[in-house]
């Protein structure tokens, strides 16, 4: 805990802001589940960045025995084309994270902008925007993504676009809801009474105040995006072979599950772990950014007021 006990006058208050983030961090890592999630995510990022270097074999290197059971040489066994499943799972992390990052990035930017505009402007614009979001939201996400991919053609890029579009309403709703309450705060009126323009008010004064729910939503959406990508790949409309992707590998292993269970199990486990890691980190972030939780921790011997 960064002690602010001695804050008042003898300590430069400049690093207070940083210490807020440090405090969030310390709350986050004190949550055992979240810490576990962070470790898993750290390993995933390493795998995604250095997959080829770490993997014992190439993703598409063939020439091994077909359907070899897990062994020391091939910890996760080999698949129907004699490729090392362990290497493919490792390298496949990149696909998953890439899809997660790009699609969540799309929905984050689009959803946040839409939510800010709808929440701040209100009135008919709000109604039109949010009703369109409701229409998008009414479709099951996977179905919507399939529809978009069906129009654009199956590829990893289109899968990312599809997931991004499908997730946009979630962000738009979260952001709009928060903006609606922040918009009514006195400081918004005060800033307006100082002559600030709407754009300035929204970007500089409202957006930072709705950051916490956006951060949490980002983390949770990552998990769903990866899951959706796996589902799309499984259905054959996402990542195309021979690119190593967990959903695709799961699908390839499905038909031979009684012959080579390892082909499906390990990519499935990878999806499970990743999604769970993002979820527990998201939950942890939600707690850490919750002002009520914070104040409990702040009250543990911290002078708030100077």
């Amino acid at each position, binding site marked *: 805990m960064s002690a602010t006990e001695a804050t008042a006058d003898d300590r430069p208050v400049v690093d*207070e802001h940083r210490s807020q983030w440090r405090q969030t961090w310390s709350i986050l890592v004190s949550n055992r589940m979240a810490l576990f999630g962070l470790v898993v995510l750290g390993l995933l990022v390493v795998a995604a960045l250095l997959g080829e270097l770490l993997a014992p074999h190439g993703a598409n290197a063939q020439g091994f025995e077909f359907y070899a059971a897990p062994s020391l040489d091939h910890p996760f066994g080999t698949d129907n084309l004699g490729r090392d499943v362990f290497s493919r799972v490792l390298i496949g992390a990149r696909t998953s994270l890439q899809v997660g990052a790009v699609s969540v990035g799309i929905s984050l930017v689009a959803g946040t902008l839409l939510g800010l505009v709808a929440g701040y402007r209100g009135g008919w614009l709000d109604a039109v925007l949010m009703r369109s979001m409701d229409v998008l939201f009414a479709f099951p996400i996977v179905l919507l993504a399939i529809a978009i991919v069906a129009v654009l053609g199956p590829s990893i890029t289109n899968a990312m676009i599809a997931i991004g579009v499908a997730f946009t309403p979630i962000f738009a709703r979260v952001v709009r809801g928060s903006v609606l309450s922040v918009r009514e705060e*006195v*400081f918004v009126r*005060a*800033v307006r*009474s*100082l*002559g600030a323009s709407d754009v300035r008010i929204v970007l500089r004064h409202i957006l930072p105040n709705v950051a916490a729910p956006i951060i949490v939503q980002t983390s949770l959406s990552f998990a769903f995006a990866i899951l959706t990508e796996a589902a799309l790949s499984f259905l054959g409309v996402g990542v195309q072979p021979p690119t190593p992707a967990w959903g695709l590998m799961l699908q390839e292993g499905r038909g031979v599950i009684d012959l080579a269970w390892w082909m499906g199990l390990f990519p499935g486990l990878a999806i499970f772990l990743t999604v769970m890691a993002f979820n527990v980190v998201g939950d942890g972030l939600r707690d850490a950014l919750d002002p009520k939780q914070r104040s409990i921790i702040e009250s543990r011997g911290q002078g708030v007021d*100077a």
Partner: protein
Amino acid sequence: MSDPVLSVRDLHVRFGSKRGVAHVVRGVSYDLHAGETLALVGESGSGKSVSTLALTKLIPMPPGRIDGEVHFGGRELVAMSEAELRSIRGNDIGFVFQDPMTSLNPVHPIGRQLTEGMRHHLGLSASAARDRAVELLSLVGIPDAANRLDAYPHQFSGGMRQRVVIAIGLSCEPKVLIADEATTALDVTTQAQIVDLVERLQEELGLAVVWITHDLGVVAGIADRVMVMYAGEIVEEADVDDLYGSPRHPYTVGLLGSLPVLGADEPGELTTIHGLPPDPTAMPPGCAFHPRCEFRDDDRCRDEHPPLRDADDAGDGHRVRSFYEVPADVREAASTSSQVAEAPPNAGDPLPAEASEGDR
């Protein structure tokens, strides 16, 4: 007297609501001169805040609608575009809002919030604005100002925050400062300090202040002139001494009569104004106060709207919106009971009529 800095003529504010059009400000007119303090008093919902927010169109529109004229520095503000108004807000007309806990943005250090207006309106560089921010904070009495610029609002106490808010309101040296319940949320000691501060700044900067409050004690301590608002109109307007010494409107008489008397020989029962203010979506055609009025002689005021007229044998500019004269002895009783006029500015109590807020 010199030309007024701010001149409001027949200002109306209406809000469209599900229950019909709420006419919350109904023909308010006044002049504000440099260096003058005008107090706007009235209970919650009397339109005092809205009437000042409407000056620079700070109310949401729609559903709000503003009619009338607001003259400031040779320009008319009601017809002005949003972009032009932005150059006036903060720059020429500054606001200080009621709640110091919520009128600062929690995510920005106060220095950033303080310099924002100056950089925008005065075109100051970051370092020049910072220098001036330090000056301003010292001016409003924040010790160690240079080191406090990077502190966040939550690191300040309520009184200190309100000083920061006032510093922000003053940052661009406006000609008019509108203090909307600027001391209501503060304890009385801090209140007195803030009142003193504003008075001092007024002398130093020649600022005209509109002080919105329901605290008649503060009014007595700070105002030159007082306007009493009821149901969106000015019902009485007078110099502060005239108003306390010789209240003319039945509502004002009721307000002053309902204040506790400091140092009274025997603490009597406080008088109250029975009834509730009218529904703004269904104003009575006559006098808005007539259902609660104790001094009406006939039914004239039920159907006929009384104009704001000069009060009989009263001081200059003492105007009242009533057909009737409150008997001199009742006036006398109300004014003597309001020793609050001589009491320190923080000794008064909020209007008892404020209690009706919860019913509405």
